[in-house]
């Protein structure tokens, strides 16, 4: 009985998807003026930009212009203007967005010799704005949860709802990742590791919402996170850790080799963290966008092929979205777990007597 019901629901759902798919080509063709460029679309979505572009309705782009903040080393002064001033190749006070070359897509100016140079650029780009929004949301969420505990003591009931969910996740990170790997000084590291986990997880999840920015899939973001881990590992490391690096417990002729290898390891560990997170999230977004491009590419070949491919593509998109939800958690977990493991290794507690 239940099977039949769910079967019916499924069929209804598929019917709707198919109907939607048949209407789609009309819509797509109505807006289709210029050639669809998949790689441009994908990299446009993955990368950063000076404006927050959502979609195009016909030929009109729906985008929020964002502030550009640059310090011109040529002229020696700061400039603040809207990204609207430099859109579509326009020039504003000597600044324009480079179309090609090393600085393609970035705000550049020309120096005295006419060479293209990049000013010091701390523009609030799409990623920077989304980053701030997500960070403020995260702060608000956690502080809101923390507020719940204000007038409570141990004997009061465990929280329910959002606070309960957050407490479950926090205690998961705190007990299973942090305490399990770090034997001493837990409180010195708990703040950072919890921040890292929830920052990554939160940004991963929000990154999956269409129209949002790809923050954790940006190498600048993961670079900073990896640097924090690097500092946390090495700043508080104890003597035994450094001894194990430079004077490992191996035959004497191995010692210099091991010292070099271990010393390189100090840097490769955070670099691996940086690349892993960035690559996973970026690749997930790229794969999703590539799948969506399939619809447009097949329709540009023939509408029959497009109609045939679309249900399959939509199915794969749903599948990939679910997978990305999983990846969003796993990558946050892995980053935090490895950071905790590295920190735990940096404060060994007398392995040998």
């Amino acid at each position, binding site marked *: 009985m239940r099977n039949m019901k769910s079967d019916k629901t499924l069929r209804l759902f598929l019917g709707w998807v198919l109907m939607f798919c048949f209407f789609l080509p009309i819509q797509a063709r109505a807006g289709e003026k210029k050639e669809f460029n998949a790689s441009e679309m994908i990299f446009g979505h993955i990368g950063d930009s000076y404006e927050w572009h959502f979609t195009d309705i016909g030929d009109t782009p729906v985008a929020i212009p964002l502030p550009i903040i640059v310090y011109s080393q040529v002229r020696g002064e700061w400039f603040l203007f809207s990204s609207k001033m430099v859109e579509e190749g326009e020039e504003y006070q000597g600044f324009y967005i480079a179309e090609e070359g090393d600085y393609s897509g970035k705000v550049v100016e020309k120096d005295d010799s006419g060479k293209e140079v990049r000013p010091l650029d701390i523009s609030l780009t799409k990623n*920077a704005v989304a980053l701030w929004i997500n*960070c403020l949301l*995260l*702060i608000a969420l956690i502080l809101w*949860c*923390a507020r719940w505990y204000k007038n409570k003591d141990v004997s009061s009931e465990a929280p329910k709802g959002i606070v309960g969910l957050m407490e479950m996740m926090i205690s998961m990170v705190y007990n299973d990742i942090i305490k399990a790997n770090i034997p001493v000084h837990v409180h010195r590291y*708990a*703040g950072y590791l919890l921040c890292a986990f929830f920052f990554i997880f939160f940004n991963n999840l929000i990154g999956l919402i269409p129209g949002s920015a790809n923050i954790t899939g940006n*190498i*600048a973001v993961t670079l900073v996170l990896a640097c924090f881990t690097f500092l946390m590992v090495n700043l508080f490391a104890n003597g035994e850790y450094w001894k194990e690096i430079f004077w490992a417990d191996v035959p004497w002729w191995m010692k210099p080799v091991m010292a070099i290898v271990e010393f390189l390891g100090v840097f490769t560990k955070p670099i691996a963290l940086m690349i892993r997170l960035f690559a996973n999230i970026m690749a997930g977004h790229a794969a999703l966008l590539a799948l969506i491009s399939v619809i447009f590419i097949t329709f540009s070949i023939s509408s029959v092929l497009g109609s045939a491919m679309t249900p399959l593509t939509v199915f794969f998109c749903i599948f990939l979205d679910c997978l990305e939800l999983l990846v969003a958690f796993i990558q946050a977990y892995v980053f935090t777990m490895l950071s905790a493991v590295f920190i735990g290794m940096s404060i060994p507690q007398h392995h040998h007597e």
Partner: protein
Amino acid sequence: MFLLTPDSGLIFWMLLAFGVVFFVLAKWGWPVITQMIDSRKLYIDESLQSAREANEKLAKVQEETALMLKQAQEQQSKILAEAMEMRNQIVEKAKTEATTEGQKLLKEAKEQIEKEKESAIRDIRRQVGLLSVEIAEKVLRQNLKTDKDQMAMVDRMLDEIIVDNK
């Protein structure tokens, strides 16, 4: 590859944003929650421990109660048995006492009766003696009415005495 080149502007904003998140949450966010998680864990552990102890105590108490109950029952049956025995003893004693008392009484009564009897017999004897003396007197008076009779009597008696003294 522009994807692999970290943009300095974004690094700056990321440092700032993550620094703010780190600072705010490490100061006002996580400690509150993790402390509560820790203390609640401790509290739960302690509660479990005390519950276990209470259970053990309860079991011990129950055991003790059962033991006490058993002991009380034993005591009760013992007391009952003792009481029964004592009753029997008392009854027995009372019986024997009653018997001896009865016998004593009986004996005393017999003795009394004997005494009475003896005194009565003595009385009767005295009476009989008196009566016989009186009767003898009367008989004698009858027999010794005449002097002849009296002389005969004296003679006879004297003969008898002489005979007796020979």
